[in-house]
């Protein structure tokens, strides 16, 4: 069909959101659109958001699942604040997400689902699609997607339920048309995913094309949009989510240290994907152990670490709480393990599928006794790879437990990522020994790293005992001597300081001094950076630091903080990093906090920056 009446408009940046019932396939739709967008060459950032229930009651507000993404011809760091396009598959999705749609934004709805029953479930007395205010305020595109899909599958021998399941592909097809995309990535995906169910492939393909052709046909949408490719530096790219990136970083560390990876864990949202991912790589010598509980997960890792493996466990807040005692054992036995916390909303079970940064204090201090561990925090999905690798490197080189603080947003969010060259990653030198000249001393330390030797069961002549009782320096024997205890407490703290040798100095984005510094950690990176860029474009004196090393903090941080008149600390908690900075550096920093289970927005940070 010729596009006679249609015109193309060039845009720099767009934010869209697919929203529907948790059974509507919105996550799959969103992932397909983002993979397609990445391959097309835009920069992008995604924000999946779904309920904790697998199938919350259909049509309910609690059951709404959404997938947001921002894509652009420029370098972007966030999934966007307000929406240009909202696809609302049912009234509940409409109600939950409409407040985020820009005025005059495009609102695409599947009218089939706006039944009296669904309207009532969403709390509407009247159909909002008939509301004049809404019709005037937004560009409303009403489509009976369900009916159109059923019609296009009329001659297919499939049950009605299977046909209805293809409706998300119609919405995807329509969006592909709207942004002038090629649909091949999704067609290939369908052919692979349902390779043994050819009629399902066919039905989904037809629905996808029906959506695309519908866009072409109707008069309501006269404009399609084009977002030019973003300028990336030369290289090979892919789209990546945080949890797979993190898992691959662990694999890389295993290879670069020639140490077999042992993962012990217990299923928990949003960390389980790491267990799933790693369990596929037995051919790389990766052993995964789904333990009976969180405690057994980390304890198996300690046993494996003692026996010479790179021991890793992953969990989320409630599971990390259970692992506390075993982390203390790792501290006192100085075994190299990595504990990954994919943070979610707390306390207790909290908001299992939502993001939060409220486990920083738990990571720093959540153990009995003086039990310091290293704390690292990746700042983007792709950075999870590098910080996963770094966590293993520090654990192995310093014989120390390392906590990696990711979160739900990083875990499930995605971005284009330059594929790292594995060859260029540094080798990791472990502290393994297979002989010793004299009587073996399990707590004799390396002068620089303060690491103790890693003598692994099976090595002749190095038989020794370790345990949770206080340990005598050098000999490793049990000791109740008061002075030895104090000495060991200090030594375990000095091990953290020793790591400063490899923690890079901070180079602020912006200026080395000025009016305002915004300092964050972890997943707030994108929003802070974008807000700071915007303010700087307007001539504001504002700079940005994102901490990836939290324990120890970089050497030059204290001096840097004093060079700004005002320090703002945005966090998805009630001010935990701010508390640390204030107590350690005695600065009057300002907290900017949000704890709604969702990322902080660019606008929220920008408004704080420009506040006088």
């Amino acid at each position, binding site marked *: 069909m010729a596009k006679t009446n249609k015109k193309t408009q060039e845009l720099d940046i767009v934010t869209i959101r697919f929203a529907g019932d948790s059974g509507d396939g919105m996550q799959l739709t969103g992932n397909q659109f983002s993979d397609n967008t990445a391959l097309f060459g835009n920069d992008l950032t995604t924000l999946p958001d779904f309920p904790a229930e697998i199938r919350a009651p259909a049509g309910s507000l609690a059951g709404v699942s959404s997938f947001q993404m921002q894509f652009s011809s420029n370098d972007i760091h966030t999934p966007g604040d307000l929406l240009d396009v909202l696809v609302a598959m049912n009234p509940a999705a409409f109600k939950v997400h409409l407040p985020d749609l820009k005025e005059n934004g495009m609102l695409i709805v599947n009218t089939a689902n706006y039944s009296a029953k669904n309207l009532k479930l969403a709390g509407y007395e009247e159909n909002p699609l008939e509301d004049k205010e809404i019709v005037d305020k937004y560009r409303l595109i009403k489509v009976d997607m369900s009916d159109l899909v059923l019609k296009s599958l009329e001659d297919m021998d499939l049950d009605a339920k299977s046909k209805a399941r293809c409706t998300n592909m119609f919405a995807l097809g329509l969006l592909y048309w709207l942004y002038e995309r090629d649909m091949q990535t999704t067609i290939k995906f369908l052919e692979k995913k349902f390779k043994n169910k050819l009629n399902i492939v066919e039905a989904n393909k037809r629905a996808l094309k029906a959506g695309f052709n519908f866009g072409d046909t109707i008069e309501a949408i006269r404009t399609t949009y084009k977002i030019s490719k973003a300028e990336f530096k030369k290289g090979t790219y892919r789209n*990546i989510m945080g949890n797979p990136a993190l898992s691959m970083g662990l694999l890389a560390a295993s290879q670069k240290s020639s140490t077999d990876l042992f993962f012990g864990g217990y299923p928990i949202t949003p960390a389980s994907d790491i267990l799933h991912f790693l369990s596929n790589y037995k*051919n790389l*010598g990766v052993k995964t152990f789904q333990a009976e509980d969180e405690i057994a997960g980390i304890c198996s890792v300690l046993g494996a670490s003692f026996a010479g493996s790179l021991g890793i466990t992953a969990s989320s807040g409630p599971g990390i709480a259970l692992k506390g005692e075993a982390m203390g054992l790792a501290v006192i036995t100085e075994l190299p393990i990595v504990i990954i916390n994919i943070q979610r909303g707390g306390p207790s079970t909290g908001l299992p599928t939502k993001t939060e940064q409220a486990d920083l204090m738990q990571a720093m201090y959540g153990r009995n006794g003086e039990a310091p561990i290293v704390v690292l925090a990746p700042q983007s999905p792709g950075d999870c790879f590098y910080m996963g690798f770094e966590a293993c490197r520090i654990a192995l080189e310093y014989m120390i437990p390392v906590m990696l603080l990711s979160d739900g947003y990083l875990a499930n969010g995605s971005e284009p990522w330059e594929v790292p060259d594995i060859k260029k990653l540094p080798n990791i030198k472990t502290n393994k020994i297979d002989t010793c000249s004299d009587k073996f001393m399990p707590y004799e330390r390396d002068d620089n790293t303060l690491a103790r030797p890693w003598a692994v069961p099976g090595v002749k002549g190095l038989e020794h005992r370790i345990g949770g009782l206080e340990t005598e320096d050098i000999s490793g024997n049990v000791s109740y001597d008061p002075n030895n205890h104090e000495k060991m407490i200090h030594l375990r703290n000095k091990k953290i300081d020793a790591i400063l040798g490899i923690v890079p100095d901070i180079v602020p984005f912006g200026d080395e001094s000025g009016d305002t510094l915004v300092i964050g950690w972890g997943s707030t990176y994108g929003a802070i950076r974008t807000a700071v860029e915007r303010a700087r474009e307007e001539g504001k004196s504002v700079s940005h630091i994102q901490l990836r090393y939290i324990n120890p903090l970089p050497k030059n941080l204290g001096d840097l903080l004093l060079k700004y008149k005002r320090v703002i600390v945005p966090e998805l908690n009630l001010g935990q990093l701010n508390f640390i900075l204030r107590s350690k550096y005695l600065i009057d920093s300002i907290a900017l906090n949000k704890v709604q289970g969702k990322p902080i927005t660019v606008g929220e940070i920008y408004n704080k920056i420009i506040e006088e």
Partner: protein
Amino acid sequence: MSNQSDIPALTKKDFVSGQEVKWCPGCGDYAILAQVQKVFPSLGIKKEDFLVVSGIGCSSRFPYYMNTYGFHTIHGRAPAVASGAKLANPDLSVWMVTGDGDAMSIGGNHFIHILRRNMDIKILMFNNKIYGLTKGQYSPTSELGKVTKSTPMGSLDYPFNPSSLALGAGATFVARTMDRETKHLAETISLANEHKGATFLDIYQNCNIFNDGAHSNYTDRELKNDTQLKLKHNEPMVFGVGGSKILKLEGSNFKVLELEKGYSLDDAVIHDYNDKNLAFLLSEITMNENLPTPFGIIYKEDKPTYDDMMKKQMDLAKDKGGSVDLQKIVSGSNTWEVS
């Protein structure tokens, strides 16, 4: 594990660490330590291939006194630590030392799961029916009504029967022995070593400070012949002074018969430790005051261990997947070039 011929001759002394043993004088743990140190050199395993893992409690100080690799972990978690070590290096001979509080109370979950998985780990549970290190509270194996510091009017918990719990959890080797019977103890430890799989030894041990005489029924000269049933595979179940009594099975109940009343050994049940039904029946008479308590191997079964099955999966994955290039994994299937 290596060939016997590579192994230097070891003696008990090789397994004695330099650490001062700090159990109370007269504690049953000394006897168990001595027997383990005596048996280990005879097992044909290199000293460096032994790993002894423990939890928390008096018994769990055990690894410090063994001159092997050892890990004194945290309360109840030894099964998980031991499992991780075994999976990381399946060539190790992993021994776990625990107590009735450590294994059956705080570590109950790990205890049942290590057995269920049939992890090839030898579990020695020192069962003194009391919390010793915390100075005398009733334990999950203490009898109902036990008066202790925490239960001045008597405990309200029914006790676990460890052998039934182990059988129910899927243990493939369940045996009972005692600190006082050093020969039987040594033999049972040797037999445990020969078994491949999750091996559970319920070792009756006397805490002479907080629960002295908890097992006196089985140690008292006057009583022990009538209270102990020493099980031998494929042999009739005989006990009593001079083997004067036998056990007969009537329906699902054991009955004591006296030979002098005209019964013969032919009337006795023949012990078959591969018979799980019989094992459950035997295990249950542990708690029966009118019947003797079984000692020796109650049950034994050969089935694949978790560690072996994991190794097989690893080998299969390596055969099938070959040495996949990590670079390919990191690149994934959808990349694009920017030039």
